[in-house]
């Protein structure tokens, strides 16, 4: 029987050399043309941690961490119709082997709707997309009234996946009703959240779904031209999108008189040039026009005055990717997934100190605990869960008391965080919350475009205070000042960047206040992260005087006689931590 080998060509797996596995397979198979084994690249499977991932069809066997050296054995097994157990996924807790993807804990509680094609089809082949119902939604829509289409999207309850969660159908209606001889549809693929790669994976793994969503939107709002604004750091996504546009044009899904309906639509790609604020919609539009990507006050909203002053509908990648699914399955069926006010699924990039990092898609309303423990497989190295950061630099840090919080737009906003675009970074006891708040604020501060004073100056002042606290020079009134600054910035900044920049500081202060206090009052960093507040010490009981640490210390801070316990001079020590990694007696500790 013939077999197909699907190799993940997503960014994560390519970084783990999946293309070398591909090349080796091709090379070996060429030596044996009778084998009837075909090799194909697919998009991301989401389980990047275990990459490179290889799936053998039709047997549906899921292999992980495959290297070029495994290739000959893999081919042997396929020819014999056997399974190569050595490369199957082994559950880190139970030790059980899983043969197919569905058996793995990471996938069990997921609901893959937007990601249903990712990892299953070759994204550079439009026919594979068509064979799974692709462009059927477009066909169905072209026979309907425009208002009917908008009604369907409204009924589905779809809300924007790019951050704020604005109802998508309503947004479309605004653009449809706006006066204008020319209208645009824009897809926001700027994905600036540092710790998130959902949009990238969708574009790389299923680009036609995004194009089909934009086409349907274009028809519904009366636009004939679209733009995809892609982050410059995503070259593979841009390449796949270009191929997809060309293929769709050849098949008559894009261009003039699409499927003989009289509807015209074309799509352009714009590569971003590296500015986080360009993810904000008005800044993004300025950037497409070739200007400095600075936001402007709203209203007027893009729906009235957008690109080149024309009515423009702007949505996120994942929002558009939901649209063809909604049309295909029907709004009523779609609305059964999720909670009352948050319908459908959400894709998250699950990262940090967690066993199963990767891309996951879950129904709205699932608890954080389910995501972290059942899907994510718990905390790395059996450490203690401390917090999870959701929503990136605009979001918040949630403590263990909130693990049972349902993940939906409104519950998250209530506790001071936000859904954001979908970054979920898990932290354990070794993460310092002051340092984390500093990390995010430093990011937004650097990305502040400088147009409005509260954001430009206010975040700088907040950052200075955090730096002071982290270096042991904090004073008690600093906490009060931070709160006050945060309130002012939130209520007076021009755009979402400034308005949400204080969130990581506010939530860490709300849920981890004692950690700030320890830094200020005791001049101590409990997690052992803030360099100026920790000292490295050598336990004289454990030290055997092997001299390994002293040899490797780059600043010559360690001294001692051979076979005698050594000591570290805190004045010379730069807290680089090299000695800890070198000591094999576990004798060096943080105090």
């Amino acid at each position, binding site marked *: 029987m013939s077999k197909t080998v699907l190799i993940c060509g997503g*960014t*994560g797996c*390519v*970084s*783990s050399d999946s293309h070398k596995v591909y090349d080796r397979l091709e090379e070996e198979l060429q030596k044996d043309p009778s084998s009837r084994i075909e090799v194909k690249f697919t998009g991301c499977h989401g389980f*990047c*941690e275990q*990459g490179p991932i290889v799936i053998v069809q039709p047997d549906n066997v899921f292999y992980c961490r495959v290297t070029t050296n495994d290739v000959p054995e893999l081919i042997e097994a396929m020819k014999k119709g056997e399974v190569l157990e050595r490369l199957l996924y082994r559950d880190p807790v139970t030790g059980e082997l899983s043969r197919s993807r569905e058996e793995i804990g990471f996938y069990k509680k997921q609901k893959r709707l937007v990601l249903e094609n990712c990892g299953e089809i070759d994204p550079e082949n439009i026919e594979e997309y068509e064979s799974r119902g692709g462009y059927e939604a477009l066909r169905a829509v072209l026979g309907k009234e425009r208002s009917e289409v908008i009604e369907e999207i409204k009924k589905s309850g779809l809300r924007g996946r790019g951050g704020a969660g604005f109802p998508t159908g309503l947004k479309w209606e605004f653009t449809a009703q706006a006066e204008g001889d020319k209208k645009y549809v824009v897809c926001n693929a700027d994905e*600036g*959240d*540092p*710790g*998130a*790669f959902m949009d*990238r*994976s969708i574009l790389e793994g299923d680009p036609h779904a995004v194009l089909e969503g934009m086409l349907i939107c274009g028809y519904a709002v009366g636009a004939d031209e679209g733009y995809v604004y892609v982050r*410059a*750091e*995503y*070259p593979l996504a841009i390449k796949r999108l270009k191929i997809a546009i060309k293929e769709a044009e050849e098949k008559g899904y894009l261009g003039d008189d699409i499927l003989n309906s009289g509807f015209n639509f074309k799509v352009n790609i*714009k*590569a*971003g*040039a*590296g*500015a*986080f604020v360009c993810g904000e919609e008005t800044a993004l539009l300025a*950037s*497409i*026009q*070739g*200007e*400095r*990507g*600075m936001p402007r006050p709203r209203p007027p909203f893009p729906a009235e005055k957008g690109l*080149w002053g024309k009515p423009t509908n702007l949505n996120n990648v994942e929002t558009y990717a939901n649209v063809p699914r909604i049309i295909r399955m029907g709004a009523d069926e779609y609305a059964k997934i999720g909670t009352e006010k948050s319908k459908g699924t959400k894709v998250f*990039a699950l*990262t*940090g*100190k967690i066993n199963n*990092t*990767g891309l996951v898609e879950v129904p709205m309303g699932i608890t954080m605990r389910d995501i972290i423990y059942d899907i994510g497989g718990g905390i790395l190295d059996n450490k203690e869960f401390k917090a999870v*950061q959701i929503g*990136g630099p605009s979001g918040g840090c949630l403590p263990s008391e909130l693990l049972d919080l349902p993940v939906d737009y409104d519950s998250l906003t209530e506790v001071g965080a936000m859904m954001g675009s979908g*970054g979920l*970074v898990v*932290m354990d006891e070794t*993460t310092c919350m002051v340092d*984390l708040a500093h*990390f*995010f604020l430093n*990011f937004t501060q650097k990305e502040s*475009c400088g147009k409005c004073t509260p954001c430009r100056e206010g975040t700088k002042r907040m950052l200075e205070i955090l730096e002071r606290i982290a270096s042991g020079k904090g004073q008690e009134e600093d906490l009060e000042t931070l709160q006050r600054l945060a309130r002012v910035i939130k209520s007076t900044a021009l755009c979402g960047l400034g308005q949400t920049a204080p969130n990581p500081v506010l939530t860490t202060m709300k849920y981890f206040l004692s950690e700030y206090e320890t830094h200020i009052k005791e001049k101590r960093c409990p997690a052992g992260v803030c360099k100026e507040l920790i000292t490295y010490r050598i336990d004289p009981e454990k030290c055997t005087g092997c001299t390994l640490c002293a040899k490797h210390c*780059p600043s010559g801070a360690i001294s001692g006689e051979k076979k005698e316990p050594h000591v570290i001079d805190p004045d010379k020590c730069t807290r*680089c*931590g*090299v000695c800890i*990694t070198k000591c094999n007696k576990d004798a060096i500790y943080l105090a």
Partner: protein
Amino acid sequence: MAYKMVQMPEEVAQKLHLVDDIVEKYKQVPGSLIPMLQEVQELLGYLPQEALRKISRGLEIPLSKVFGVVTFYTQFHTEPRGRNIIRVCLGTACHVRGGQNIMAKITEFLGVEPGGTTPDLRFTLERVACLGACGLAPVMMVNDQTHGRLTPDQVKEVLSRYQ
């Protein structure tokens, strides 16, 4: 950002006339300043002042405006860059898994700070926020290659592969 006057390397000066073709190609396209700058930078490796002048004249927009756009976006560079570009990820996932230790090791090894270029033009060091390979954190990219699951010890060896 101040514009440091730097002598154009010989090979850049030789290619400068090709900028005219790029300007010609985009002249009529609205909003084409950024793609044009991207293409010129791709051609010359960076954006020398001479090239910006050509663009300003070709598009008939003030040089100050062109310069404003160039300095707004981190992707654009006004000085010559190294043969190999190192991008160390300091995104959230990499931060919590020790990305800054990788950066510290590289700055120590190369003797340049983020944003800098080694005097022999072998390396330019940059920081980025998320390369989209968070599952392999901490991550760095050298040219088009991503290196994941890094430890500070590996840095020297990885960099020695790039001349």
